[in-house]
């Protein structure tokens, strides 16, 4: 974009000032959505919990206290103050496991979204920029991936690659990637018609520069929204894979895996089932609330109405 900004504007703002204004404007629209602000606050709290897990957790997440099996939460009869949310069937502190589980969920979300985002952007840019048969081939392949129900394809991919956290993340990222590719392609195709792209091309910008420096920055808004929504789906789907025994393997304190281990105790000890699921729900809800706010703030169509 620097190639086209050589005009004599009446007031010249520095790049930093423009960026500050953009952020201020973004925050103005984002903060109008109360839910989004609450979501953001919960999400920041979650990040802090994950980062300081080893300080916050009262116990080690995998230590089994044999004298304290299935101890109920502190407010129930038989509860103990040293295990605030009770213990599971092998005597591990549930609160500590939940705290360490936050690390897993955030890590999974970040890895999945990063892989899917980078892959999708590159593929979408290629399809949208070159068009023609490149576009047709790429988009047909994306259609094929989208034809499968996402969880089913991820499951089968994990079955091929072998159960485990890494493979689960790769599988989920592969399944999500077409959404990013489609969005990038659509955005690139509409930007390609703009004059600033022609101007940059005339000024001698090569294909790589045109794709990544000229066009891509102007396509980011929908991608950011999609990334947020994919983050929450990734947390949900990886928990589902863990629940089905295909994700993180025991004794990892991953929330979905915890639920799988707790299944046989549902009618005897409600707390081993309730809290991990609540943790998943709260995290996913917070991220979705944030995503709604981001969409309101980044979508110019909604903004002015």
């Amino acid at each position, binding site marked *: 974009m620097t190639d086209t900004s050589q005009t004599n504007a009446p007031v010249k703002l520095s790049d930093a000032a423009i960026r500050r204004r953009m952020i201020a404007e973004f925050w103005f629209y984002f903060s109008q959505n109360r*839910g989004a602000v609450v979501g953001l606050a919960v999400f920041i709290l979650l990040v802090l919990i994950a980062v300081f897990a080893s300080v916050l957790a009262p116990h080690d997440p995998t230590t089994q206290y044999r004298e304290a099996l299935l101890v109920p939460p502190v407010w129930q009869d038989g509860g103990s103050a040293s295990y605030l949310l009770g213990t599971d069937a092998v005597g591990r502190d549930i609160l500590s496991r939940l705290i360490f589980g936050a690390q897993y969920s955030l890590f999974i979300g970040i890895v999945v979204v990063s892989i899917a985002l980078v892959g999708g952007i590159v593929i979408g840019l290629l399809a949208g920029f070159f068009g023609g048969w490149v576009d047709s081939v790429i988009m047909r392949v994306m259609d094929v991936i989208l034809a*499968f129900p996402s969880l089913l*394809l991820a499951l089968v991919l994990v079955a091929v690659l072998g159960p485990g956290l890494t493979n689960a993340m790769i599988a989920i990222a592969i399944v999500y990637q077409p959404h990013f590719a489609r969005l990038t392609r659509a955005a690139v195709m509409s930007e390609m018609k703009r004059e600033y792209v022609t101007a940059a091309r005339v000024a001698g910008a090569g294909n790589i520069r045109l794709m990544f420096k000229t066009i891509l920055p102007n396509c980011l808004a929908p991608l950011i929204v999609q990334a947020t929504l994919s983050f929450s789906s990734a947390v*949900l789907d990886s928990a*589902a894979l863990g629940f089905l025994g295909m994700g993180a393997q025991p004794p990892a304190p991953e929330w979905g895996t915890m639920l799988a281990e707790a299944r046989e105790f549902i009618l005897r000890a409600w707390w081993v*089932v309730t809290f*991990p*699921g609540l943790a*998943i729900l709260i995290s996913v*809800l917070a991220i979705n609330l944030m995503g709604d706010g981001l969409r309101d703030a980044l979508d110019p169509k909604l903004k002015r109405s």
Partner: protein
Amino acid sequence: MVRFILSKLLYLVPTFLGITVIAFSFVRILPGDPVLLMAGERGVSPERHAELTAQLGYDKPVVMQYFDFLGRLLQGDFGNSLVTKKPVLTEFLTLFPATVELGLCAIIIATLIGVPVGVLAAIKRGSWFDQISMTAALVGFSMPIFWWGLLLIILFSGILGWTPVSGRISLLYFFPNVTGFMLIDSLMSGQKGAFTSALSHLILPSVVLATIPLAVIARQTRSAMLEVMGEDYVRTARAKGMPTYRVIGVHALRNAMIPVITTIGLQIGVLMAGAILTETIFSWPGIGKWMIDSISRRDYPVVQSGLLLIAALVMVVNLLVDLTYGLINPRIRVK
């Protein structure tokens, strides 16, 4: 219209071929010798190994193997299960009605609740009803349904003792399988209590499976209604003194329903993914549980063909949704 249908059908061919390539390569990517994999722990003698390899065509080039695979598919041969030795297609067709029954009930629940809630929320925009229902929709949309199912089991089966925990019907009842739909078969059998038993088995799983589609439908209905209510023809209808219920029922709702119908149709993929989890939790003998069991038993022919059949099914339903959309909305057809 014929042209529209044909172009849509033609469009499906490459996608379908792509699906077969994925399903085919799935077994080929698996590490290890496929014959040894099928032989399992018992092992196999070198002579028998060579014989099986030739019989299954694994000695041919991969491309040839793919075309053999495709040829068999087109003849309706989806292979046999390693565990039960039965044809995969037969197993699929036996279990399929259970999933359809569950999925249909779920989508009916989701539509019957989701559409009115969405309409009401849009009409009373900003009211407490709008806020509460949309918050609930967002919670439903974020729900880990495998956990939600477990919670409902704790409450309704554990504490209240109202519903059974698993299966499709109590073992006390036995009647011929006519339609494959337990609700209909139990009614036709005329046995006392059979229908109630089938219904009480069905209710929790369908509520769980309906959760996410319900949230999506309610949100979509609300935003479609809001959009339509701002249109000129709605204002005109109001201005000429038409009663509110007619403005909403005739002018707004009909037009708002077009995107909503598409949304409902597109929930089939969501339902299939949800069925995997729901059927696992409630031991519901359908396609989802069959796939999970086959994956954990390493019954690869079932996984391969199951994947293919489900993807083809989703594709066909999406096509039908597309065609219906074209039927309702002529603008799509012309494009």
